[in-house]
């Protein structure tokens, strides 16, 4: 029973829970106090000082994000002192900021710009400090570009990398006027322990951290008449893209997305969901094979739990942090890379196109995919399997550049051969989705029956909790799988690398007996990925998740093994899951990396 307290904001009395910050209390009262270093996903920092307010009786202003309400506190959010101070703070930030907005990637979507516009900073009295600073830009990473001249030192990226991801690639370094956000010894992000997950990009209010964009390269490929440009789209893109183009969060724009891609000039608009279904076939078979080897053959070289391998941020994380557990990873490539390998072999053959002329592009909610496409081993087709990876944001930019009125588009469907998918594939975009899809197929293969969950919705693996557990009991399996009779298949799902650490530490300390774990590097799963529309927060991610599940239940086919194009590819091309051709094109290896 919480005894409420009385506070006054701008003369009106409110009853609030004790300990609520002034910022939240004001928001509940319909008063918006501007912020910069504050973010719903992260702990309170209180360093930008933009959110200062006046408390009657106190000479100094207080940061509303960091000050808890107390009984009889009188708060004023719009006095002359507050406004003048805030204006000064914005001017100070602008004076050490490269304020040449027209040349900035985040022009139009920058929180500092918004503040400056709101407070009508029409002139700069202060001296421009930028020429004295010798800022540098780090462009060496294939995924992320770090431009120090745009940094407002809100430390959101540092807190994100520490609290949400537990990677700590970025830190605050030096002090005083030299204070900056840096990597270890100011090395390139490519050279430090960074998973490329792009959460820092997602949380950066300005253009200091942005994705490496390949828009111009893709435009060139599209305009080249010699090239056959194929595009694949990840499941999470279709529930995020709308936000960049006028829709509210959580609106599905699948049909419009396909139409837009066709309008942009791609020669074939195909679906990553197709290879997601394929991944389930390969990975499901791999899991069952491992289970047999461990439970029946007692083969010590085969490791359980098996971990999913579709999240390249997770892959790089485990390579750095738990290299001795690499043989727990499924050897399956991610859907993006499977697609890339198949497009220049299977698709090229079927369509009678010279694979040399195919440019394979993918639209991903992810920045780590850019790193993944660049990995040296991803050449199994004989060519670079995926040539360019564009984030959801980059696609939106291209759509706007092409002059397409996205909202007015008529829905279109994906092209054939590698464009068919099921509900199990689309849920790859949300945390727990890969697990659910795998269980839907594996359970049916083993028992001949559907998973015992209403509407195939495996609820224990759904939701935004950091680590989720589920166990599915196998009873009365088919004769071939008799060894699994009575086995409780124990599964764990983690999203956000800080939760991956929890699961891996539990595995390391032998505290668990999981058989199968799904890890997605980004909070919420891919729908919260580093390439998704900015801003991101728990509410937005929740809405995107609901959209993905709505898409799943609306699909005619809900299980990966029922996908007719998947059945066809095995019949015509691959043979069988884990067969020789699958092994060559659809499976990969990993490399141990430095932990520090």
């Amino acid at each position, binding site marked *: 029973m919480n005894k409420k307290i009385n506070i006054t904001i701008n003369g009106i009395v409110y009853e609030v829970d004790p300990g609520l910050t002034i910022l939240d209390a004001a928001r509940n009262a319909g008063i918006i106090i501007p912020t910069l270093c504050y973010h719903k996903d992260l702990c*309170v920092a*209180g*360093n*930008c*000082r*933009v959110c*200062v307010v006046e408390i009657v009786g106190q*000479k*100094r*202003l207080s*940061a509303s994000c*960091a*000050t*808890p309400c107390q009984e009889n506190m009188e708060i004023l959010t719009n006095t002359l*002192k507050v406004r*003048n*101070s805030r204006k*000064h*703070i914005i001017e*100070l*930030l602008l*004076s*050490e900021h490269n304020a040449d907005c027209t040349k900035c990637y985040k022009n139009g979507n920058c929180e500092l710009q918004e503040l400056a516009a709101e407070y009508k900073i029409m002139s700069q*009295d*202060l*001296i421009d*400090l930028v020429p*004295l600073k010798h800022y540098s830009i780090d462009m060496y990473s294939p995924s992320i570009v770090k431009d120090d001249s745009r940094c*407002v*030192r809100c*430390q959101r990226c540092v807190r994100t990398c520490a609290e949400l991801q537990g990677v700590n690639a970025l830190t*605050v370094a*030096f*002090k*005083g*006027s*030299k*204070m900056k956000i840096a990597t270890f010894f100011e090395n390139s992000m490519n050279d430090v322990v960074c998973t490329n997950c792009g959460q820092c990009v997602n949380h950066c209010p300005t253009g200091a951290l942005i994705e490496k964009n390949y828009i111009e390269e893709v435009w060139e490929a599209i305009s080249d008449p010699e090239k056959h440009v194929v595009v694949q789209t990840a499941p999470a893109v279709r529930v995020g893209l709308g936000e960049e183009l006028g829709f509210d969060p959580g609106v599905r724009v699948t049909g419009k997305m396909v139409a837009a891609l066709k309008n942009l000039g791609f020669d074939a608009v195909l679906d990553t969901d197709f290879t997601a279904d394929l991944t389930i076939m390969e990975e499901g078979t791999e899991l069952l094979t491992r289970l047999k080897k461990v439970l029946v053959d007692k083969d010590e070289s085969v490791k359980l739990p098996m971990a999913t391998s579709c999240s390249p941020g997770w892959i790089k994380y485990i390579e750095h942090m738990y290299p001795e557990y690499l043989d727990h990873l499924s050897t399956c490539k991610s859907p993006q890379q499977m697609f890339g390998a198949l497009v220049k072999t299977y698709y090229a053959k079927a369509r009678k196109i010279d694979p040399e002329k195919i440019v394979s592009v993918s639209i991903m909610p992810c920045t780590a995919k850019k790193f993944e496409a660049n990995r040296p081993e991803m050449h199994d087709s004989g060519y670079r399997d995926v040539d360019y990876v564009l984030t959801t944001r980059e696609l939106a930019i291209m759509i706007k550049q092409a002059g397409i009125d996205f909202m007015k588009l008529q829905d279109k469907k994906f092209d054939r051969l590698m464009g068919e998918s099921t509900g199990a594939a689309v849920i790859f975009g949300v945390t727990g989705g890969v697990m659910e899809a795998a269980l839907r197929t594996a359970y049916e293969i083993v028992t001949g029956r559907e998973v015992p969950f209403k509407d195939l919705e495996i609820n224990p693996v759904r939701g935004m909790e950091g680590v989720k557990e589920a166990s599915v009991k196998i009873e009365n399996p088919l004769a071939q799988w008799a060894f699994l009779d009575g086995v409780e298949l124990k599964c764990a799902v983690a999203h956000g690398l800080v939760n991956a650490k929890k699961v891996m530490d539990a595995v390391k300390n032998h505290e668990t007996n999981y058989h199968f774990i799904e890890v997605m590097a980004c909070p919420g799963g891919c729908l919260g990925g580093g390439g998704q529309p900015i801003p991101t927060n728990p509410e937005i991610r929740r809405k995107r998740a609901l959209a993905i599940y709505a898409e799943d239940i609306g699909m005619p086919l809900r299980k990966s093994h029922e996908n007719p194009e998947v059945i066809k590819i095995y019949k015509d091309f691959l043979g069988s899951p884990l067969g020789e051709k699958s092994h060559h094109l659809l499976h990969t290896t990993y490399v141990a990396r430095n932990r520090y």
Partner: protein
Amino acid sequence: MTTSYNLKRADFIFRNENDWEKILNRTLQKEKQELINELISSELKGRGGAGFPTGLKWKLASEDPADQKYVICNADEGEPGTFKDREILMKVPFKVLSAMAICGYIIGATEGFIYLRGEYKFLKSDLEKAISEFDYYCKEIKFDFSIKIFMGSGAYICGEETALFESMEGKRGEPRNKPPFPTNNGYMGKPTVINNVETLAHTFTIFKYGAKKFYDLGVQFSRGTKLFSVSGDTPKPGIYELELGMSLHDFVEEFGDGDTKAVQVGGASGFLVPRKRFDETDIGFKGKLVGISLPTGGSMMLFNSSRSMFNVLDNYLEFFREESCGQCTPCRVGCQQLLIGIKAVKQGNKPATYLDKLLKLTETMQNTAKCGLGQSVANSFSSIVENFREEMIY
């Protein structure tokens, strides 16, 4: 108008400490509440510069129900012109150690730390010897309190209490948000009493002689004595224990070289008082300098007419620009703007009126900075620019 207060010297701090064992033992026999009342009635205020009532601080910490508490002696003396804490630790360390132990007894802490600045490393071995002697005595009287030294590494901002905690926790010395306050959430999140070296030495005086003896010295709001670190254009540089409440006029009479143009009271984060204001300025916690209370770390730097106030301000701003932790916008960028601003005005790149803009900027820094460093830059900036404007321009 001159106050008729003449400088009153005292000699409590550096008086010998040979009886520390007796005083410690005697004090530990008393009731905790009695000791707290003693401290409160003495009206002792923190001697590091912030002036928080010491009795109240110890009382708040003692009231917190946490199981683990700490006592920390802040020996990160870094304010320009201050060197008294070093002398205390060199000459009468047992007073400080005893005071820490008594504080531990009162609040319920069994561990104490001395955060010693890196620049004073040469003190460490002698201080360690004193501590081991002290530990030995505590064991003899069966009093559970151990003291360790934690070395700093060259960061002025670590003198700020929450930054000090961060530093002791192995992190960057960046000040925290307040609330919560150290008496509830300090080192390692536990209730902590953190006091300046001199403050602790004064508590020893109070426990030895009683609160009244302390209270009877000084003036209203500024009871007791204070160590003043005197340097600059003076024939008598050194450390002097004086009763609080003296007028600056009398001070300069005693310590000036006959040509004193200005006195910087309280170090770079203090105020510069020009000659014309000596008469109306008292040194205490409610000093009469335009209604602002003068911070009393005790640093007194005298400047004669040969000194350029521009150079002085430039020196202070360079100091703050380097030593700021860099966390919050007003301080990090503000210090840079002020430094580069006064240079621009001096060189003629900006008009003289730009100084008024800078004054407004310091107001914002004072109102919005996260910790005392950013909040105090305005003190010296405004007092120098307002009183010596011509020297900023020509």
